[in-house]
């Protein structure tokens, strides 16, 4: 019999449906934030999850290994572990491999969790694109080696997630031992995916992570569009599709995240008149080219990568997102109460306009009501 714990979508529906709570916090000066902040915030929004998935991503986790790719890998069998480790050994030089420090009593049916610090083998890489190399190998493990799943594969960051309330997932990973300058967190309310650890959020690829609340009604075409660029959406989750979309636009096509956001949630044609000519040209070019990536239907996402955390909602903001700032800290949350709990003295809070990205970067704190001009973004990014 198939082990249902290994399946993301055991009913074979088109894909996974869920509702959720999301939270993100960043210290834009690079200062470290303890795990208790995201844990308490996400736990406050407990009625938005149903105990079937929770997770955290943190950046700035492994400064002592900042040049290695940190792999967080879950194994549900010894055979899977053996095969994956052989595969890793073939393609990577492994500096360190260790079981993660976990508390198995925190949750039922827990898999084995391992951490590796690895670098591509120079003779295999042959001067190719390192990130593409790591991304291809990660996808290979996730799609073709059984009983193994890579939670995250970026540098100086990591994903911790599992089936359970976020609070218990944090207990399992003994999360209080970690700190980071960005944390994102997720509590999940799936309707058709009862329990696969790999299917929880955040979803990670390289150092991208995405947490997501919503249901992408354009999933079918987003997935077909991405297939043309070599992405296999094997998990059938919206989060996976969003991560690949961002990876394509930002990493492979080199667009600043603010510009990529205009492809994912473009302004309405009817609002185009309000834009200046250059802006119109940009938005039109993006929409004509990436129309198949337009994320349609209700969603809020927090995208993070090295030095950057971005919040974005769909064009008509059908799912909640609140932003708060306090000094150098930027907070994003499904509900304002969670931000107030961990940071009672916020300087400013606001609800961003639908489709307008909220961008926090090292050295950059967003302000309420901010919109951007494409030219400025480029001037800043180059």
């Amino acid at each position: 019999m198939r082990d249902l714990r290994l399946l993301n979508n055991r009913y074979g529906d088109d894909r996974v449906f869920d509702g959720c709570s999301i939270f993100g916090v960043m210290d834009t000066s690079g200062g470290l934030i303890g795990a208790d902040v995201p844990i308490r915030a996400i736990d406050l929004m407990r009625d938005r999850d149903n105990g079937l998935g929770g997770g955290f991503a943190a950046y700035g986790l492994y400064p002592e290994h900042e040049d290695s790719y940190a792999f967080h890998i879950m194994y549900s069998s010894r055979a899977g572990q053996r095969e994956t480790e052989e595969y890793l050994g073939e393609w990577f030089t492994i500096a360190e491999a260790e079981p993660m420090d976990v508390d198995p009593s925190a949750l039922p049916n827990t898999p084995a969790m391992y951490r590796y610090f690895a670098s591509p083998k120079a003779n295999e890489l042959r001067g190719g694109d390192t990130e593409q190399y790591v991304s291809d190998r990660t996808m290979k493990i996730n799609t073709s080696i059984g009983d193994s799943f890579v939670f995250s594969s970026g540098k100086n960051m990591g994903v911790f997630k599992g089936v359970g309330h976020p609070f218990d997932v944090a207990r399992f990973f003994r999360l209080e031992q970690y700190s980071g300058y960005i944390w994102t967190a997720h509590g999940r309310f799936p309707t058709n995916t009862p329990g696969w650890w790999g299917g929880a959020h955040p979803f990670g690829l390289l150092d991208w992570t995405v947490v997501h609340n919503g249901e992408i009604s354009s999933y079918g075409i987003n997935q077909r569009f991405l297939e043309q660029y070599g992405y296999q959406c094997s998990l059938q989750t919206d989060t996976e599709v969003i991560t690949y979309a961002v990876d394509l636009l930002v990493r492979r096509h080199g667009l600043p995240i603010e510009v990529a956001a205009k492809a994912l949630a473009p302004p309405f044609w009817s609002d185009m008149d309000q834009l200046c000519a250059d802006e119109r040209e940009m938005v039109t070019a993006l929409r004509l080219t990436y129309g198949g990536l337009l994320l349609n239907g209700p969603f809020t996402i927090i995208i993070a990568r090295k030095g950057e955390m971005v919040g974005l909602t769909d064009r008509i903001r059908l799912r909640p997102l609140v932003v708060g700032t306090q000094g150098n800290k930027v907070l994003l949350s499904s509900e304002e109460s969670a931000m107030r709990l961990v940071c009672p003295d916020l300087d400013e809070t606001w609800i961003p306009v639908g489709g307008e990205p909220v961008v926090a970067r090292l050295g950059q704190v967003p302000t309420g009501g901010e919109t951007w001009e494409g030219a400025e973004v480029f001037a800043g990014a180059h």
Partner: protein
Amino acid sequence: MKSYLPSVYVVERDPNRCIQCKVCVNQCTFDANYFDEEEGVVKSHEENCVDCHRCVAFCPTNALTVRRNPLEYRTNANWRAEVIEDILKQAETGGMLLTGMGSDKPYPIYFDHLLLNASQVTNPSIDPLREPMELSTYLGRKPERVEFDASGRVKTPFAPQIKIETPIMFSAMSYGAVSLRVQQSLAQAAMELGTLWNTGEGGLHPSLAKYASNTIVQVATGRFGVHSEYLRAPQIIEIKIGQGAKPGIGGHLPGEKVTDDVSRTRMIPMGTDALSPAPHHDIYSIEDLRQLIYAIKEATGYTKPVSVKIAAVHNTAAIASGMVRAGADIIVIDGLRGATGAAPKAIRDNVGIPIELALASVDTRLRQEGIRNQASIVASGGIRSSGDVAKAIALGADAVNIGTAALIALGCHVCQQCHTGKCAWGICTSDPVLTKRINPELGAERLVNLVRGWSLEVKDILGGMGVNAIESLRGNRLHLRGVDLTDTEMDILGVRMAGS
């Protein structure tokens, strides 16, 4: 020769209602109604009736009804009435049987086996009365990615793009096949709707030049009416290879229809038959198509998308891929049920494949080859409703063309007599008296009403699915489910069984 053919219809005239006004006599173009001078009453030559309902619609006292002749042949699943009568017709006349409109045979209509999705609970539907709902569509080749320069200016060169406000356009119908007034109605409606009409292969009449910004012109095998101004005028230039109603067959506009005006527009002598050869005699293979596409692009300075229209046939997916690689910016696929002004019945009813299958396999193939972005896909041939429009777009079309539906809006009752030149509704004729039956102003209004109505319905369908842009439906086959289809059919359509 004595005809052995029974009349197909019976015309019933209620004597208690008929006031002998002779309207039906004047309206009928097939001599099915006449006034018997001796008896002083209106009667019918029922054997001439084609069931076009023109008299029924105009009879002031509702005295008329037309029925199928109840006359039965001996029951035989093999030698059915139509089969017997076709043989009798040919025995009496010789030659090919000609017909008009699209195939009336009961081939599967896959649209009727596909069902659309809607949002419930896990995501909200969107109310098009309260929220913007976007149908705007850009036709033309798209790049694989966009690059910007350091100041945020678009660096990627874009091929010409044509914006339409709704993904519904009018099919090619040539002047000669339809009257100038019909073309005027189509052109005027296209302008009001922000969409496109298509000249067909009969040239562009000078009086329609003012609609240039809503016009597609065709370059077909006969090259009728093609000159430099003709290529400069429109938004899109379409190379017509084939037509769903008659794949592999050319056209024949009889000399009687080539009036002075038609002759000038087509640039052929008055009264001569306008014969469109079956193939383009400069396109015998795919590289020849490439040459014609680029000849047109050169001639127009790469300012207009070039479209290529083919009939849906067995290898459509492979052919479409070749067309895209040959430089077509738009490909139009015309299915088995597409209509025509005249075609041999044997071809119309036996050649081609349904549009749904052709469209699905073309979209899938172009995606597999990673070239779907390089051309827009337009589906035509049998689009009957907004539901069909939405389903065609979900299967992968950027837009659809409507021909028969547009003519029905103008009054056509699908009597399939277009080839006779006697269209009682004044549509498919060049008879100067009959063409007056279409008033271009009213015609345009009827067309605008139809397309507006459908567009509103498509918006409702989108909103119900929880999306607010047509891009999110295009090629999104997860929003379709099949009923009553085999696994192979669902596999080709790329959809799953309802309930799964």
